[in-house]
């Protein structure tokens, strides 16, 4: 009897221990689903979100261009140097062209851009919306009979979904260009060899894959921070926590989506 009671206590203890995280996850999943439904409903009110969307797009697009290109340039240069270090003497030089361009298009361009923007745009969205929540600005919008979804969230999300893939394409091009210039300087690779290698292994699907991936990442970079910022609680500390959570969650989601899209789109077994 004592053993049964003990076992029941143990079950109850672990049940209680596990209930909170489960409730937390289910609660967030429910709220996130409602947010998606509200966003879909709000799409018809284009007169409200379109002008604000252009302002947001300018802010995040123009404001992020420099850092995105800088990181892509360095990624291209380092890929080029490492390719030279590993391949010289073992493989024909034109392989470097293939490695640099394919690495940038398939992985480095989309992932690095998304991770940088998760920090830059994600933190900005979460902090802005979180501050608006704790200073009652979101309540004020609602009290005026206006929807925070169409006034605040949709402009930010649509702007991100339009701008991030464009930034990714710029990052791909910059990485390849800087990679070629570095290979030319350090390996003595000619443009003809570089172009030959790049074209030899290139398939149009690669570019589509890069673009599709960047759209998926754009969803993570915008939706998650907006959701977390919008649901911020407990003052300045809450805003800080929301910002950190938003960046971490968006970054982890990007890595998960990276693995998922690779598996689904490239059919890798």
């Amino acid at each position, binding site marked *: 009897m004592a053993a049964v009671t003990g076992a029941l206590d143990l079950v109850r203890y672990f049940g209680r221990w596990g209930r909170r995280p489960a409730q937390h996850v289910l609660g967030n999943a429910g709220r996130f689903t409602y947010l998606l439904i509200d966003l879909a409903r709000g799409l018809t009110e284009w007169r409200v979100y379109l002008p604000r969307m252009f302002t947001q797009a300018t802010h995040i697009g123009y404001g992020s261009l420099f850092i995105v290109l800088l990181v892509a340039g360095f990624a291209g240069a380092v890929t080029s140097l490492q390719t030279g270090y590993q391949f010289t003497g073992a493989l024909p030089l034109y392989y470097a062209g293939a490695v640099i361009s394919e690495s940038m298009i398939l992985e480095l361009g989309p992932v690095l851009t998304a991770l940088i923007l998760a920090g830059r745009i994600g933190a900005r969205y979460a902090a802005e919306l979180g501050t*608006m929540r704790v*200073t*009652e*600005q979101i*309540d*004020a*919008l*609602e*009290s*005026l*009979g*206006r*929807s925070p979804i169409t006034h605040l969230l949709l402009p930010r999300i649509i702007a991100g979904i339009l701008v991030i893939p464009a930034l990714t394409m710029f990052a791909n091009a910059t990485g390849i260009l800087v990679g070629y210039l570095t290979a030319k300087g350090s390996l003595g690779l000619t443009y003809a060899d570089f172009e030959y290698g790049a074209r030899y292994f290139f398939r149009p699907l690669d570019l589509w894959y890069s673009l599709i991936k960047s759209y998926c990442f754009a969803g993570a970079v915008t939706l998650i921070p907006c959701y977390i910022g919008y649901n911020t609680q407990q003052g300045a500390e809450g805003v800080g926590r929301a910002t950190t959570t938003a960046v971490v969650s968006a970054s982890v989601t990007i890595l998960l989506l990276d693995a998922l899209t690779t598996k689904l789109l490239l059919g890798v077994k």
Partner: protein
Amino acid sequence: MIELQNISKRFLSNVVLDGVSLAVQDGETVALLGPSGVGKSVTLKMINGLLKPDSGDVIVDGLHVPKLKRHELALLRSRIGYVFQYGALFDSDTVAENIRLGITDEDQHRDVAYCAERVKECLRLVNLAPDVADKYPAELSGGMKKRVGIARAIAGKPKYLLYDEPTSGLDPVNADVIDGLIERLRDELAVTSVVVSHDVRGSFRVADRVALLWQAKIRAVGTAEEILASRDSAVQQFLERDLEMSLIQAEGNQERHGA
């Protein structure tokens, strides 16, 4: 008319409101008094549907607020002006844009000339100069922010006005200015108002009736004279505490001026 019928609300284990009932007649101004954390702002948020009661009903203009659908609630809110405790102005918008957001009729909101005129008129009503329109909230003092918050709340010509601690955080002079403003708006616009406050003197000045919220319940409702004459221990305790606070504040002011 605003009617609270036996409303209750709790946050986790903390019971904030327990069977609160109150009726505010058309054109009347009622002040909801009580110490901090007693559920005054929660009550106000229930009136315009920002929060839902756990039980009971809130009826505004004959509509059952907790049961309203999203678009019905938005329509009702366009008839209710809400003045937030710290203004809740949109930081990235100018004063003019903030006030323009208060124009809830969509056709009027799109009419640029009408909006410019209405912004000017609202600024005049709250005693602010027209050049304030181009400033950002960060460039305004606390008192000015509150007045812009009031201007935004009246921009849509609401039937009801809800004030959440309109004088909190202000010095006595500015608090007096805001009280005067509430009085003037009450007389000029003939709106039905609920003023949430813990300032007894100000509440007695602006309200036709005062309700004291104490330990999650309404302990007394009546005119200023009726409240002052009340024998209820909670009412007396609250008034004594307010008197003490006023004396401490007055001494502090004297010391500051003396120094």
